[in-house]
């Protein structure tokens, strides 16, 4: 995709929005120009902080999910016995929409960041676990044996085979689940917090009835999702050039 094409698509979206705003002509749909102005103004008045809090929650849960799910996936993928034991469990829990656990996790972990981080972690964890497991299982025993014959022990196998083999799976998992993660973050931030973009959007939309600010929040949340998506893209280009 070319940068020019992306800018062009953005322009079209803004035009459609502007046209809709003229047609509707109500405060609940302000024009993109007004929202852009409010967005810049609100950045200095707390929006930036809400953005950073949300970013921190996503980043922390992503790092936590990779740190736990990638090694677990590698172990399952390389040990048919372990996999036989765990796969029914994963099979049953993987398709559950993790967002239904929001009230439950809030009850258990209460207010604060840990509940929000846990929920996003759950989504990413299963996605990464399953993809890394499958990619590790797809590594041919011949490949492992031939690298072992070069003198590689456990540590070198990890460094030269398992780690590079699971990187694309981790990135694919992130690409697939980053959107869901941000969506669930929004839901999670509706409860028991006064920080984060979800809270900010809901507060301005339902309590303060400050619609331009609400739209600024939506823009910020979209930028968060887009930024994460672009980061995964960028990492993939740098780390997985052979694809």
């Amino acid at each position, binding site marked *: 995709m070319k940068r020019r094409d992306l800018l062009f698509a953005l322009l079209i979206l803004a035009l459609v929005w502007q046209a809709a705003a003229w047609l509707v002509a109500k405060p609940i749909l302000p024009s993109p120009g007004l929202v852009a102005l409010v967005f810049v103004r609100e950045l200095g008045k707390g929006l930036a902080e809400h953005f950073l809090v949300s970013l921190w929650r996503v980043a922390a849960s992503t790092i936590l999910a990779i740190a736990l799910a990638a090694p677990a996936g590698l172990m399952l993928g390389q040990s048919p016995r372990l996999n036989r034991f765990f796969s029914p469990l994963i099979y049953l829990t993987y398709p559950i929409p993790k967002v239904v656990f929001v009230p439950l996790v809030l009850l258990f972990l209460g207010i604060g960041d840990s509940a929000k981080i846990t929920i996003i972690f759950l989504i990413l964890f299963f996605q990464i676990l399953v993809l890394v497991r499958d990619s590790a299982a797809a590594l*041919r025993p*011949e*490949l492992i*044996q*031939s*690298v*072992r*014959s*070069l*003198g*590689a*022990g456990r*540590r*070198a196998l990890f*460094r*030269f*085979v398992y780690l*590079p*083999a699971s990187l*694309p799976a981790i990135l694919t998992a992130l690409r697939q689940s980053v959107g869901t993660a941000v969506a669930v973050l929004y839901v999670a931030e509706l409860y028991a917090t006064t920080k984060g973009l979800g809270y900010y959007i809901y507060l301005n939309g339902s309590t303060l009835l400050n619609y331009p600010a609400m739209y600024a929040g939506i823009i910020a949340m979209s930028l968060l999702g887009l930024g994460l998506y672009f980061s995964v893209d960028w990492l993939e280009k740098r780390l*997985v050039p*052979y694809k």
Partner: protein
Amino acid sequence: MIQLQDLTFSYGQNLPVFEHFNWQAQRGEAWAVLGPSGCGKSTLLYLLAGLFLPSGGKVLVDGIPIERPRPQSGLIIQDYGLLPWATVHQNASLGLRVRNFYGPDGKHTPQDFIPEQDVLPWLKRLGLESVADKYPGQISGGQRQRTAIARTLALKPDLLLMDEPFSSLDAPTREGLQALTLELQQEQALTLVLVTHAIEEAALLGKKILLLSQPPNIHANVIDNAEVGNPEYRHSARYMEVCHDLRARMEIP
């Protein structure tokens, strides 16, 4: 150089593949191991490589029992031996990178190993310079096998183990690599053990041929094939004779 003493090996509770099997090979010899599918020829190679351990008896290389891959032995397999995410150059230097990773510990890396990264001479020698930045998926089967050879020879092995190395290649590529293998074996004074199911290949590359049959293998059946190495050997009457003899011994009509 290689001694199998009273070797017994079986997969789990199955019938042993080798039972009290004895065999030896001298330094610098070129051996072909021939036999039908399931006779244990790849098993033998993995035992020599230290990737499998005997159930009984000993595998000795240079008088030392093999309990793990030996740094001075190189193994080349039929397919899938290269890292798909690494370029030809990175794949060829993998062995050296593993050695640099551990340092000369005597276990993964020979104690007299001097750190180096340079595989370029090998890439040149094997005609891989122009594809050095390509990935295994982008090059031909013959080039992939050359890459595997470069990777192994860069480690300066004294024992080269090859498991059906050319069986997935087309005939001209196979003949080219067979000639190259013989040339490198003589040039580098390598002890070669090449496993194959192809009678012609065994007769062409093995100065001595170890013939295995359906398990359990108890006696080493060795055929001398002293004229190997002569470039015209492929077209000689003697070669045809050896092939014929091998075919008869394998009971192929």
